[in-house]
């Protein structure tokens, strides 16, 4: 019995003449933190989009927990247990923090569609308790009534993370979770992610900041020009000359 949660085999995607993904193979172990690094335009985000159903690959297979993900809509993939944090936080800006967290909690309870037009949302005790719990966990309790649009980017990111975690996903995808953050915010986020890691949620992280990558990841894949050029533990990647040449160039280290 393998512990493989996500398996990407031979995935390719073309946009016109551009080969965005070229025979990508990747395997994510249950409970691991798997980082994907690489220069801009390497195809990291495209790969993520293939995972959540935003893009359908031309070739290859994506298997999650034993089932193929291809051809499923984003909401079905989420219901299957994959949650995603976006590069720029995708939150419900007009709603309060509390509501933002309740919505994904409802998705977990109600499935993709259920009309519940009579009962008061706030009186759904189970959902509410889950939301309260996660807000408390992620230090958002004080801001629970704030309208999200008025929050800082860092807080929005934290909220988005809370929205994903409240669903207890099997796999969490993080697209540059610290992009555009100050050093202090970045450190906070790293601490947060470490804290989450203790819960055993499997994670795939796309990240530029090597500090973040090496302090979080169990395993690192390096992408360049649409394909995976190296894979290994953070130490192995650090040591790999090929990676140094192709990408790192010492710039970040």
């Amino acid at each position, binding site marked *: 019995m393998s512990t493989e949660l996500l398996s990407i085999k031979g995935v390719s995607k073309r946009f016109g003449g551009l080969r965005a993904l070229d025979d990508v193979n990747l395997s994510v172990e249950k409970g691991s933190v798997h980082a994907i690094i690489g220069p801009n335009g390497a195809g990291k985000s495209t790969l993520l989009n293939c995972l959540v159903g935003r893009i359908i690959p031309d070739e290859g297979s994506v298997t999650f927990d034993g089932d193929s993900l291809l051809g499923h809509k984003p909401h079905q993939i989420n219901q299957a247990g994959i949650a995603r944090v976006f590069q720029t936080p995708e939150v*419900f800006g*007009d709603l309060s923090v509390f*509501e933002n967290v*309740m919505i994904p909690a*409802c998705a977990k309870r109600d499935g993709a569609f259920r009309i*519940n*037009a*009579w009962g008061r*949302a706030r009186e759904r005790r189970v959902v509410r308790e889950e939301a309260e719990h996660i807000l408390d966990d992620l230090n958002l309790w004080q801001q629970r009534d704030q309208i999200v649009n008025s929050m800082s980017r860092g807080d929005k990111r934290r909220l988005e993370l809370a929205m994903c975690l409240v669903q207890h996903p099997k796999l969490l995808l993080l697209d540059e979770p610290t992009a555009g953050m100050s050093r202090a915010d970045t450190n906070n986020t790293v601490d947060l992610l470490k804290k989450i890691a203790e819960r055993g949620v499997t994670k795939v992280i796309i990240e530029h900041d090597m500090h973040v990558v090496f302090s979080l990841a169990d395993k690192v894949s390096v992408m360049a020009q649409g394909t995976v050029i190296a894979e290994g533990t953070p130490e192995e990647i650090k040591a790999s000359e090929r990676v140094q040449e192709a990408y790192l160039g010492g710039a970040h280290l």
Partner: protein
Amino acid sequence: MSQSVMTSQENPGEGMGESPAESHAPRGDGMRGFLASSRSDWLLVAVFAAAILTMPIWLAPIGAGYPDILQKFAIFGIFALGFNILFGFSGYLSFGHAAFLGAGSYAAVWMFKLLSMNALIALAFAIVVGGVFALLIGFVSLRRSGIYFSILTLAFAQMSYNLAYSVLTPITNGETGLQVTISDPRVLDAMFGGVARRGVPELFGMELQGWPGFYFSAVLLILAFFLTLRIRNSTFGLMLFAIKSNQNRMNYTGFATRPYLLAAFVISGMYAGLAGGLLAVTDPLAGADRMQWTASGEVVLMTILGGVGTLLGPVIGAAVMKYLEQIFSSFNEGVLHRTFDFLPTGLQDFMVAITSPFVGEGWQLTLGLLFMIVVIFLPGGIMEGVRRIASRFRSGRGGASPTPAPAGGGH
């Protein structure tokens, strides 16, 4: 569903009064009320019901204390409430809602002709027809979003209108409008011995014209308001607001958004069907004009004028527009002279001269100006004005800092 129905009765949430979420909940009608207590909901409904039912008294001084206009206030209030469930909650701007209003009217009149003059049968059928019609149009139109959605709904409504006016005359009686006649079969009435009295819709013997017609419409408006309130505070309502806020995130959060939107579309179509049916109940004649794009535009304007996404706004917007249409258009110079009677002659003539372009045949000028003034000075519609006055009043009295409570959904 079952869980929620139970909780709504028992209100176990009240027991969580000590929970931190309760204590800091912002209040005010602008707020979607998600965190407001259900007790304040009941209070709101009670105040609303009292205000609606006493309209004949408090609207009489401004010339609106007669049955027909109050019926229109109530009926178009229902129409706008339903429209707001789609547009105000989910952000999808339908430009063809008049089609459901018209379909509801035709459905009701056909019930009067074929089955019975009983208003409940007609209304039930009108709601069903409005809903089914909305299901068909919504299913197709919701494949697109934004302005593409708006134009699809507009196109369907205009097709309905044009056909109703001409080719479908056997069903709609075209320009003249579908009427109830004494010679109609009315199978049920005939069966139960109820002699077709005079072709007036009734509720178990009470003819629904004039004041009874108003109170009947008013009760339905209050029910519709209560239902809208429930929807707004429900999980379903929360999902609609979430779709409006960020549909992309909804998808990645595991929701199939289209069924939610279609449900909202059908519900608002049923409201429109009910409103159309009520138009036929209080005045049994259904004309094609009701389906024209101007009628669809009217409900859009009513909603925006009152305040998009607010609960009371659409009802107020509907009343303001119907008031202008009915009362301002009726002012002629004679009425103006009487109005300014208290002034000396010269001043009186002057006042009549400067006000007359805005009333009578100039009532639409006033309407246009009102639209502009409201939207320029009160971005959230009339409800925004109400909120501002309320917060000023509150701060003036209590000295509490008027933190601008976000006008829920009015973005």
